[in-house]
């Protein structure tokens, strides 16, 4: 079956009323978490994971995709109206969008962000549709050695490039790897790092760690600061949601340029969404006929970065679906969701779960339309949500986090672990350790160990297998370059 036939079959499944309903719920919840400061898609998916294993996998992944895309959409509302970017990738939107809002053009800022997100999200999904099968074909040549090297590259890239310090990123990765190795070793049956506790034999649940770090950790940090007691100042929704002819003329090229930055960079192991949004912003500033407006509310400064942000969201799904490699915390949680449903990820996913993958991709197209419909007309509702007083907002978040972890197995031990991870998350936030490497390390460390041992078994214990196989050697070389490259560059440029 060709990709196009498979996609059409995917549309057939995604348009089933029940699947469509889950997609709608996902988009709604995603926009909600995108709008509310302090809650991201990774946390929401992690929270919902243990609560939703009763629902069929296809419906669940369609909902998760909706949450993922919806959060990227919703983040712009918070950025524009209260200048609080939920994630670093919304920083430029907050900068220009809030200035537009202060000049009485909040409506146009929200409109260009929403339409740009729709355009770029659709372009990103199109690219995913056509490039993913090619990547899968190439990846089918991967053996355990290449997989091990690819995972090393991913974790190094996520730790070394993201965050403010490579050292702190690598420490977070090491901690995640250590936690990922807790439990019974699957090959020998030996317990590791269990302290003789039966509750730890099954290892540490990714959801417990993720919810603890993202939800409880964030709440502990904000409570410690004591600066969140009142809801922030929300800008009045001023200006029409209809864009003028000049707004359209200034926005459409920025949307396309943003999309073309966002997708390829988002698909790279450490690409993320921050770099394309920054690149898009500075490109628009350079190309604009009104560079003097930048910093004071230029519409291109909202249109381009928002488009780049959403295209990057589609890009992140590429390595996840084709190689089983998560390049962000949200992708890592989605990977653990696949594992939770007993679905083997990697290139074989397209063959073994073809229906699920293509339904998911089809639902991304539909989700983009749902989000456009949800975002603009309901903007008044989203604005009201920003006025929820923090005590009740965080009480709700912590109660649902605790319920989610407790409901997964009625384990009080896991609830205790949730708060321990909360304290770790608080310390990480306070001392500026990035959280994503810990989560990615927690998930990838046992997988990388498995691949390494398989590769060594095949090579009869020859460690050189990782450097004599050209692809594996290239991946390890890139990982090494990422580790030492920035330090070398600094040294060279200081001379």
């Amino acid at each position, binding site marked *: 079956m060709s990709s196009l036939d498979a996609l059409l079959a995917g549309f057939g499944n995604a348009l089933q009323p029940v699947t469509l309903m889950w997609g709608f719920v996902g988009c709604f919840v995603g926009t909600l978490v995108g709008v509310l400061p302090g809650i991201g898609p990774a946390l929401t998916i992690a929270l919902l994971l243990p*609560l*939703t294993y*009763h629902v069929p996998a296809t419906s669940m992944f369609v909902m998760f995709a909706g949450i993922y895309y919806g959060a990227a959409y919703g983040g712009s509302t918070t950025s524009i109206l209260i200048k609080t970017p939920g994630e670093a990738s919304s920083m430029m939107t907050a900068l220009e969008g809030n200035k537009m809002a202060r000049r009485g053009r909040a409506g146009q800022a929200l409109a260009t962000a929403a339409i740009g997100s729709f355009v770029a999200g659709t372009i990103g999904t199109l690219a995913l549709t056509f490039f993913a099968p090619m990547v899968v074909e190439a990846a089918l040549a991967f053996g355990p050695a290449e997989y091990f090297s690819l995972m090393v590259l991913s974790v190094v890239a996520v730790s070394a490039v993201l965050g*403010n*310090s490579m*050292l*702190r990123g690598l*420490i977070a990765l*090491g*901690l995640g*790897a*250590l936690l990922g*190795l807790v439990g019974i*070793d699957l*090959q*020998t049956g*030996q*317990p*590791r*790092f269990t*302290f003789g506790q039966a509750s730890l034999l099954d290892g540490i649940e990714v959801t417990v760690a993720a919810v603890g770090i993202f939800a*409880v950790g964030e*709440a*502990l940090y*904000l*409570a*410690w*600061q*004591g*600066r969140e*007691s009142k809801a922030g100042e929300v800008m009045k929704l001023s200006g029409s949601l209809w864009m003028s002819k000049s707004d359209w003329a200034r926005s459409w090229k920025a949307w396309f340029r943003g999309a073309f930055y966002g997708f390829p960079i988002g698909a790279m192991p450490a690409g993320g969404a921050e770099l394309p949004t920054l690149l898009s912003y500075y490109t628009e500033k350079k190309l604009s006929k009104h560079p003097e407006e930048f910093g004071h509310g230029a519409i291109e400064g909202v249109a381009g970065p928002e488009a780049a942000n959403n295209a990057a969201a589609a890009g992140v799904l590429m390595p996840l679906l084709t190689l089983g490699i998560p390049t962000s915390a949200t992708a890592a949680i989605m990977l653990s969701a696949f594992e939770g449903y007993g679905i083997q990820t990697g290139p074989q996913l397209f063959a073994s779960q073809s229906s699920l993958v293509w339904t998911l991709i089809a639902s991304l197209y539909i989700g983009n339309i749902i989000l456009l419909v949800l975002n603009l007309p309901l903007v008044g509702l989203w604005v009201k949500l920003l006025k929820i007083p*923090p*005590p*009740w907002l*965080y*009480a*709700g978040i*912590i*109660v*649902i986090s*605790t*319920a989610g972890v*407790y*409901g997964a197995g*009625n384990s*009080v031990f896991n*609830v205790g672990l*949730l*708060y321990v991870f909360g*304290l770790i998350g*608080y*310390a990480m936030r*306070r*001392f*500026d350790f990035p959280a994503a490497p810990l989560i990615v390390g927690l998930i990838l*460390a046992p997988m990388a160990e498995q691949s*390494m*041992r398989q590769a060594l*078994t095949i090579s*009869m214990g020859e460690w050189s297998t990782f450097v004599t196989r050209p692809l594996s050697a290239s991946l390890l070389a890139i990982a090494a370059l990422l580790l030492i490259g920035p330090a070398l560059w600094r040294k060279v440029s200081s001379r």
Partner: protein
Amino acid sequence: MTPLRIAFVLAALCGVAAWQVSVIPTSLMQMTVGASLVPAAVVAGLSVLALLYGISAWRGGQADESLQEDQSPLPGANRRLLFLLGGGLAFMGLVVPLGFILPATLCGMGVARAFDAPLNFKSFTLCGLIAAVFWVVFAHVLGVGLGPGLPWLI
């Protein structure tokens, strides 16, 4: 807490982890790579990183948000943290004997107090409502095993 103390905590963690690696039983199975190689490598790597972090912290090169003017905590930071953690402890201690809703209400009240909401009837009512809604949606509608909602249903 300071970055230097974090370095000591990391070093202690590495010590405990090294001890745990040393007690991993040797497998009787013939394996190319045993169960302890990767854990040992991770612990060794983390120890080196912790040492580098410690040196950097000692030289004042590591970040602490509490030192930034717009991020530093307002008075009562420890009290607020204890209220939030106390809410979690109340849930853990009471969920088995009392069912889900009352412990979750107390947990919510602890969190709300940590964000400066007073411990009063309004807080009890709102948090009780939040807990009850979650219990109905997840346990009743979605069939998640949250246990009985109230003590008399146990």
